[in-house]
């Protein structure tokens, strides 16, 4: 698929979008429509005013150069550490501080209340910590036994 727009990164690290009619937008950001449910489908390029400039049906359909650009921008904007292991929890009553191992290194999170653990489409869970960071557990049954046991106390 060829696109009728161009995307480049400028010296300020911002994406610059040039549309089919020569309109130029700086500071364009890609936004996933379903960041959890279907991350690779439906990505909008949005200008700083929040207006949609282009719609990407599927990331894989893009030409390579464009795709890497979009992917790198997404990677630098998205922050949803995926919990691989729960190492310890400070208490089973909230607020409780968890030490976890994520795909982005080990971290500590403060769980303010059980309601901050959101059930997504099973078996995924989304944990919001006291700073508002979302930690994802993609498959809670795939965690190791110790983590599952700790986690289970909060569900």
């Amino acid at each position, binding site marked *: 698929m060829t696109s009728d727009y161009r995307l480049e990164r400028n010296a300020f690290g911002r994406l610059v979008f040039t549309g089919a009619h020569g309109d130029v937008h700086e500071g364009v950001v890609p936004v996933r429509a379903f960041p959890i449910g279907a991350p690779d489908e439906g990505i909008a390029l949005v200008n700083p005013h929040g207006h949609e400039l282009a719609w990407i049906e599927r990331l894989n359909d893009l030409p390579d150069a464009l795709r890497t650009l979009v992917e790198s921008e997404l990677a630098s904007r998205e922050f*949803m550490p995926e919990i691989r292991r729960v190492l310890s929890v400070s208490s089973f*009553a909230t607020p409780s501080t968890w030490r976890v191992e994520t795909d982005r290194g080990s971290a500590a999170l403060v769980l303010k209340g059980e309601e901050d653990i959101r059930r997504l489409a099973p078996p995924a869970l989304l944990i919001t910590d006291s*700073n508002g960071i979302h930690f994802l557990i993609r498959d809670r049954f795939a965690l190791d036994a110790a983590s599952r046991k700790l986690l289970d106390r909060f569900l």
Partner: protein
Amino acid sequence: MKTTSAPLPNAQNDSPAARADLPALAGRFPSSLPDGRRAEIETQLAADENVLAHLEIDLDAGLRFADGLVLVSNRRLLARAAGQDAWQEWPYRAGLTLQRNDHAGVGTLELCDADGRLAQWRYTLGGDIAAGRLVDQFARQLAGALTGKEAAASEQALCPVCETPLMAGQDECPKCSREVDAPPSTWTLLRLWRFAHPYRWRLLAGFLLTLCATAATLVPPYLTMPLMDNVLIPYQNGKPIDRGLVTLYLSGLLGAALLAWVLGWARTYILALVSERIGADLRTTTYEHLLKLSQEYFGGKRTGDLMARIGSETDRINIFLSLHLLDFATDVLMICMTTAILVSINPWLALVTLLPLPIIAWLIHVVRDKLRTGFEKVDRIWAEVTNVLADTIPGIRVVKAFAQEKREAARFRAANLHNLEVNDKVNKVWSLFTPTVTLLTEIGLLIVWAFGIWQVSRDQITVGVLTAFLAYISRFYLRLDSMSRIVSVTQKAAAGAKRIFDILDHVSSVPEPANPVHLPRVEGRIELRNVGFRYGTRSVTRDISIDIAPGEMVGLVGHSGSGKSTMVNLICRFYDVTEGAILLDGVDIRSLPVAEYRKHIGLVLQEPFLFFGTIAENIAYGKPDATRAEIIAAARAAHAHEFILRLPHGYDSLVGERGQALSGGERQRISIARALLIDPKILILDEATSSVDTTTEKEIQKALDNLVRGRTTIAIAHRLSTLREANRLVVLDRGSVVEVGNHEQLMEREGHYYTLYQAQARNVDTEDQLARHDAAAQGERK
């Protein structure tokens, strides 16, 4: 990129000297910098260099957790990128800018010059305030370095911990003092003592009665011993029955039974009375506390869950106190007394009798843990079931309109199924528990029989003693069985207590000030100073500064979602600002008592909420002692009087739950009357007229004109034409103020407001045309 790759040569040369006069170094760092960091930083600093602000970076460029540091000194910006050892520096020069923004919980600092981006650092939002300080200091130092003047030091008092500026009337930082990360203690039930304390004398009386009642119940088995040894066995051996002795023993039995009956009745009555009161206190206190919590708390909680906590959980605790705990106390007393009696009769047999006790105690202990988590889970699931109901019933019109009854039923079934699953799991352990205790009881009895018979055969005890023992322990083990039940009920009650104390322990995120400032008279001057706010991680408003003079009417306009209602929430202190401050007559609203402050505010919202009750009650909601004349005057001013009179019961008409019996415009006018009645200094109208048709709007508008006079007014209106009266219009766009001025000025500027206005004017035209078209069409049909 023009960066030096560290370590910096001059910094290293300086470092020994820097270390030499360590005591004098105290002024070189902000007090909030952790000690562990200082050694690392010192190696980088020149002799006369002071660190003025710092930010601990916890993410690297690929957003992995790693550790780094950004510093602003009086000479330059210094940074060690996350996960790296090398330091980089940027001395102050023209064209440098440092910017901060955040997205989805990650903050970004960007250092740029005219040609491009020099560096970028990422951090989790816990460090956002420090980042704000850093950017501030950077700008100040940069300006100082460029103009050659000494950078002005910040005059504001700062919180020593997080460096939030402190406002007049604040001794402690509103931000830090609210952090509560400590988990509640496990001995939650003991905390119920707070509620039991007022009734302690009655509780003591109840306890003494329990003691006596239990003692009385222990008399009958004791009497079986002499009955057996002195009456029955002698009779079997050929002696006649001694009638006097029998009468004595039997009347003893009867007396003990009667005594136990009277005492048991008294103690149950007293203790039930007390526990009922404790439960009621608990419920009221929890509800009162709940009402004080901030909007934010309610935003994050489900209605059904809160209802379950205050309703059924308190009841469960109540039953626990009045029934189970009482039984348990009786049982413990009984066991202690029985043990004493048994030991006094025959220590050996007593020992054997009591042998199974530790085993059972151990069993109870093991199961306790499993059951506790299980029961906590059951509670949470139960709340989920209630939540489905609380979600669906108020939205029943939507459910029916979209014919989704089946789906909602399925949702309820799913919640119920989940409930079943969890209960099944708990019951698996629980069902094994009771039979095991029974089995142990039987085995215990068996042991006593065997050992007793052996002792009787060796003439160490009499048959009477063995009978007494058997009589005692059959009661005793019976109690053990019921005692084992205490495990589950205690755990259930503890889980309930924990969930209640979760509410009670929650500190409002709009806390009452420690040293409240009281304003004797309110002028109504509102100042917003660099106000920033975030819902969770979503930055909604940024750096808003507005000054509103007493009596001025300010209109807030902007696209939907531009943060207008958020401003209202902040000014009403439903939420506290994340940055900056809001001042009323020069005093930070965080240092005013919350209720006192809100008394000065009249609020009319887009969706007026009416409570179940009469119209008069609803109008007088903010001032329950208002006279009828006042209520009518307010209704007249709100242009509600006439339609109220048309209702069958006038001001005494019931409005139904949430005001269902009234139309949107009628509800709105009642809510305006409500705001009018309290005669507030400050009036806030959030799209008060946008849900009604134009005619009604005109009426409401007339009502509002009455309301606005002489008050500081902040009005948000969807239709810009309704804001013509405003002294000033503030145009918001994506959370920032973009334009300020009156209608004419803003139209002249042809900026944001102009476009908004033009767009609406076009719409109105087309609406009019459509109306005309319709009329024409109807005319033709006739």
